[in-house]
């Protein structure tokens, strides 16, 4: 039955749009990765200083916690631990988004990893090496950040004694000991990259120096406060009673 091809019987024609200018989602992803990175990096800078207020004494840390937990809104002056809980949930969401977007950058195939290793071995370039460490620490953070955040969601009580108990008696020092170098290196190199990526900074040498100084400073600050919690924790007897201001 090949009686010639009859006229094409077309019902409707739906024109596809082959010349879409660029990919808006590529742009969105790049922007969102930088924005979430800035949020997390900025948060880290604040967070490290707040938790390190323990170095100025239990009283100071206690007051910082009450302030951040919204103590001024309660009649007793005590903060609400659920503020920490809520904030941890929000941070987890930001971390998830940042991680999902950053996945685009990972060498997901063995061949890509091989190329990267070969490149690092043959080309001497500091910024590329810095990115490699950002990649490695980023991978490590996939596993460490959720553990930290889940602890704060399930157990949001913070205080000079309660935090020291967590660090010393509940062995969270192990988590923090790993988390501190990973997050500091990742975040500081990340902030540097965001600044040069969008062209906000043209002079890289001074920025590099600042970032290096910040890494050393934050590592020292974090280590010192971790040590302070260890010392306080060691001096506590179980069950731990929360710190009472004025009476110590």
């Amino acid at each position, binding site marked *: 039955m090949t009686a010639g091809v009859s006229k094409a019987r077309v019902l409707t024609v739906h024109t596809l749009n082959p010349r*879409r*200018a*660029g*990919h808006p989602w*590529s742009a969105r992803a790049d922007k969102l990765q930088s924005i979430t990175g800035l949020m997390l990096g900025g948060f880290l800078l604040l967070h490290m200083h707040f938790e390190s207020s323990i170095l100025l004494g239990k009283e100071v840390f206690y007051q910082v916690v009450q302030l951040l937990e919204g103590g001024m809104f309660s009649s007793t002056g005590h903060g609400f631990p659920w503020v920490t809980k809520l904030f941890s949930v929000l941070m987890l969401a930001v971390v998830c988004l940042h991680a999902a977007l950053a996945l685009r950058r990972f060498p997901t195939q063995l061949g890509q990893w091989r190329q990267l290793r070969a490149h690092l071995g043959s*080309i*001497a370039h500091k910024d590329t090496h810095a*990115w490699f460490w950002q990649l490695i620490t980023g991978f490590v953070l996939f596993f460490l950040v959720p553990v930290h955040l889940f602890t704060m969601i399930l157990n949001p009580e913070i205080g000079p004694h309660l935090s020291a108990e967590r660090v010393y008696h509940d062995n969270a020092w192990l988590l923090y000991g790993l988390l501190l170098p990973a997050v500091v290196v990742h975040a500081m190199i990340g902030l540097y990259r965001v600044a040069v990526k969008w062209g906000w900074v043209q002079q890289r040498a001074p920025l590099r120096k600042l970032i290096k100084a910040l890494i050393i400073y934050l590592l020292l600050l974090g280590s010192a406060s971790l040590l302070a919690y260890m010392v306080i924790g060691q001096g506590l007897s179980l069950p731990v009673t929360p710190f009472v201001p004025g009476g110590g």
Partner: protein
Amino acid sequence: MSGRILTFNIFRYDPQEPGDKPKMVQYQLAETSGMTVFIALNRLRQEQDPSLQFDFVCRAGICGSCAMVINGFPTLACRTLTAKYPKGEITLMPLPGFELIGDLSVNTGKFMRELAERLQLWLHPKGGDMDIHRLEDPMAPEEAAKLYELERCVECGVCVSACATKQMRDTFVGAVGMMKIARFELDSRDGRSADDFYHVIGNQDGVFGCMTLLGCQDNCPKDLPHMQQIAYLRRKMASTLL
């Protein structure tokens, strides 16, 4: 620094020769004053090993042919003084990421041609005006100067070899592609719209795939402003596409 004996460790491999395997071969040569790696290579080929393969044309940093990896830095051999290396040890590798012709010689030409065809890196006159007898409209000197700045690219391939992103992802356009797109976007004679350019580099293979490792910026032998240029394109496209 003349009078020293320089030691060269040179990557040798000829894919055309059956059974040949990649190897590092050591040569020694007396340094002369003002010696560049390019001069040293010519001496080695003339005096010690006529089979040594490497590319050169202009010996003055204009043709971009003699790019290779010198002690871990991709750069032009003709612009690298041997006096730069106090130990007198120089390791030479071919540029990674390109088809190897032999030893230090790679096929950057093939790569650049494919890139130009893919991104259409030539002038598309406004209104498709192809009349070669018509006089071109005059161009403002400021615009010409801007174009000239980007036109200084010699297509040596250093930015491609220095870019880990490009090495990991073959379809990535790389700094040379983006620089040339920026060049035609600036050109008032070019009829392509911003959308046309975004179509080719407003995606993961273009500016949004760049991870800002800045190997291009730090190694470009012509000191082209890759970092600013890519950041500019990224900002512009992010605001246009969103």
